[in-house]
């Protein structure tokens, strides 16, 4: 039997992706574990690995092809002893495989949360990418109505637990779900109006000498999400000046002590922890506005903006309020490293209860960041610089940074935002609390 290689779903919400590059060509022999292709999703590029042996009989989707729907047959492998050219002649229609997928994961009734992790795309014809195991398996079980409502409200179905038969996500499960998590509209184009077009619909013309580059999926996602945020979320901005001297001194001491362990804390690592602690102190700011509900989080997961060659990605420090600064530092280094390689897994950058964006290293004095929905706030950190500063009624020189919180004003009142800024300032200026 020739084996069909199908476009894998590399994240729970992935509906389509770009076949960035073939790493094999027709006639190549492959064995389990060989890398077949690079697939680009909205946020990351992942490697697609063979799990069957055989000869690549035919490549059906050329590299560089955009918007390849999950499940599309992209190549055919002839098994051992099979004639590659015969295999080539008889690729089964893609649709044929779908009922097969249906039967793959019948979760026992009421066992939604216990469902064993299914490797992504294991259900499709024998190819599972190593890079993207997901918590709940690849196929999201949801009723047609739930899928449609989720698409319209931008709810990430992968983040929900289904209460229907066999763990199926039903309409009731969507009530109160945070809206606006990156959820690409399904191929059925169910949500024509709600997703603002990220690109101008008119063809762009100019006489100015220029080059045109096709948008990467990441760029498209950034465009869409930021547009949505600015269009739908009323932002308010609150700025405080924060004296950094004590924190810098503490950082020096800590780094001295941690050096043998190979840990070097950045100011940012400390600020992540400070923000997380402030959010726990002022829980009214650790929230999501979700349609007719307000979601209050009991943990502070901080999304940290990391600039990568292709754009920007926000790896998450989960439970930053509970983690030691050295742990935050090592995690951050590791996440940022993989972010730059485009190797983050979706659960490592989707979610978070609030964000931190630091442009201090560029000498930016102060800025206002765009909220990352459905989060309720983002903290923008400016450069720490020596400024004339009043200390004990006397002019002195102090290292000061300006921090600006952007808050979703639907969910967070100005006074509550102000309290968060105050708490953040207090924590940073009395930094021993960060290591207590």
């Amino acid at each position, binding site marked *: 039997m020739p084996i069909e290689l199908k476009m894998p779903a590399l994240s729970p919400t992935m509906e389509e992706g770009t076949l960035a590059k073939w790493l094999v060509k027709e006639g190549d022999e492959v064995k389990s574990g060989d890398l077949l292709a690079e697939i680009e999703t909205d946020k990351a590029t992942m490697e697609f690995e063979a799990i069957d042996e055989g000869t690549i009989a035919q490549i059906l989707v050329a590299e560089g092809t955009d918007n390849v729907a999950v499940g599309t047959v992209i190549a055919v492998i002839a098994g051992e002893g099979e004639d590659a050219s015969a295999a080539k002649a008889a690729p089964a229609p893609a649709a044929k495989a779908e009922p097969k997928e249906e039967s793959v994961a019948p979760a026992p*009734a*009421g066992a939604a949360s216990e469902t064993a992790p299914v490797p992504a795309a294991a259900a499709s014809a024998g190819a599972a990418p190593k890079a993207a195991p997901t918590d709940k398996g690849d196929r999201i079980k949801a*009723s*047609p*109505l*739930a899928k*449609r*409502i989720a698409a*319209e409200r931008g709810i990430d179905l992968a983040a929900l637990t289904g*209460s*229907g*038969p066999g763990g199926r996500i*039903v*309409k009731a499960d969507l009530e109160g779900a945070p809206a606006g998590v990156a959820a690409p509209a399904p191929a*059925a184009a169910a949500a024509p109006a709600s997703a603002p077009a990220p690109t101008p619909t008119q063809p762009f013309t100019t006489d100015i000498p220029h080059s045109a580059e096709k948008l990467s999926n990441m760029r498209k996602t950034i465009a869409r999400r930021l547009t949505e945020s600015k269009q739908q979320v009323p932002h308010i901005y609150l700025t405080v000046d924060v004296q950094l001297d004590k924190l810098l001194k503490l950082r020096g001491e800590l780094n001295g002590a941690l050096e043998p362990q190979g840990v070097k804390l950045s100011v940012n690592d400390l600020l992540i922890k400070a923000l997380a602690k402030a959010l726990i102190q002022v829980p009214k700011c650790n929230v999501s506005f979700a349609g007719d509900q307000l979601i209050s989080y009991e943990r502070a997961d901080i999304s940290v903006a990391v600039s990568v060659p292709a754009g920007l990605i926000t790896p998450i420090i989960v439970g930053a309020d509970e983690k030691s600064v050295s742990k935050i530092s090592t995690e951050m280094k590791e996440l940022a490293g993989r972010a730059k390689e485009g190797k983050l897994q979706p659960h490592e950058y989707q979610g978070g209860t609030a964000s931190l964006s630091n442009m201090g290293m560029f000498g930016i004095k102060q800025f206002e960041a765009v909220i990352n929905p459905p989060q309720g706030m983002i903290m923008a950190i400016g450069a720490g610089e020596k400024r004339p500063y009043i200390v004990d009624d006397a002019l002195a020189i102090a290292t000061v940074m300006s921090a600006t919180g952007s808050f979703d004003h639907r969910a967070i009142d100005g006074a509550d935002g102000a309290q968060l800024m105050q708490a953040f300032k207090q924590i940073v200026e009395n930094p021993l609390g960060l290591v207590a």
Partner: protein
Amino acid sequence: MAETSYDLIVLGSGPGGYVAAIRAAQLGLKTAIVERELLGGICLNWGCIPTKALLRSAEVYHYMQHAGAYGLKAAEISADLDAVVKRSRGVASQLNKGVTGLMKKHKIAVHMGTGKLTAPGKLEVTGDKGVETLTAKNIIVATGARARDLPFAPADGKRIWTYRHALVPTEMPKKLLVIGSGAIGIEFASFYSDMGADVTVVEMLDRLVPVEDADVSTFLEKQLKKQGMTIMTGAGVEELKATAGGVSAKIKAKDGKVESAEFSHAIVAIGIVPNTENIGLEALGVKTTKGHIDTDAMCRTNVAGLWAIGDVTAPPWLAHKAMHEAVIAAEAIAGGHPHAMDVRNIPGCTYCRPQIASVGLTEAKAKELGYEVRVGNFPFIGNGKAIALGEAEGFTKTVFDAKTGELLGAHMIGAEVTEQIQGYTIGKTAELVEDDFIGTVFPHPTLSETMHEGVLSAYGRPLHI
């Protein structure tokens, strides 16, 4: 005094009770069922099933009388009421035996007698053999309901009937007054009218079958009037008296005028009263609302270990609702995690001629709840099978949420719609959207094609009209 202990005791063996017992036994619980009268309860002895048997006779009779319409000749047609009733009783009896067999098959202990809760987990059964005390960790109350009497004219079984008397008439009513136009009232009105009685239906609310969509009510009224019934809506019976030769009634019509009228018989079908008395609920402090036991989504009452299902609990008071609750309760008791039932997904069927079937919200209710709706309506006259059957009266109406494509409600009136509504119910339960219905291939020629067209019509694209 014998004392027997079980994992579960079910009090009442109607469609709720016996199903709960079967499901519990399937799940390995040592189960007992307590029944004071007949296994199977009202539904199959005195309700759903025997009425369907009567209505079938009326239907065949109606066809015989209209044989000419089909090119056939039938002469000397007459009805033998006793034989019709006998057939109905035979059907009930067959099913009663069936339930007895099911109890045996599942090794469910049957205790015939009147049960009363004496303490949590303790039930005293008074029967022919004396008093037994049964104990169980869990007890399900499934005692059902009975007909509500008119306060000023309790049923006497001779001239003033409840459903129970109407099921076993000894004489054919010549001029029948039916008070109440819910499912029970309308079914008897339909039966007796088809059997040849002159029927008047009095409904207090402003339309027939008030729980149905208003379009269904309007259509039904027209059909029943065409069949020769007198329909009075917005009207109330103020006085009802059995006389030597019949009943005399004072009816206040919609316009406020009170008129006297004479009938040979009257059927009172103004609702039900839950059977909650004398079963020990008060002593245990079981909470009720308007007499019906309060339960949660898993059919638990406020008393630990005490459960309640069916007509003795909140509406809708339908056998299939009781059966579904029975399964939920039994599974929850056995430690499972059954899915709660959504009331909006419980279909309702009325077996008058033409039949009525519906599920979900009426158009008016959907609008009242703030839905922006898309409404479809397809008449049976556009359906080939309906015309071939000679039953082209009826329609299928759908109500969709314009925003999400959710099927909010479906309302059908016409031939065999009670057998069709399950299609919409499956779709609604599975949360299908309009595209799924539109994309479904319906067999031709069937009446069910009106279900397809009803959806197409909501989206402005019906094919056969």
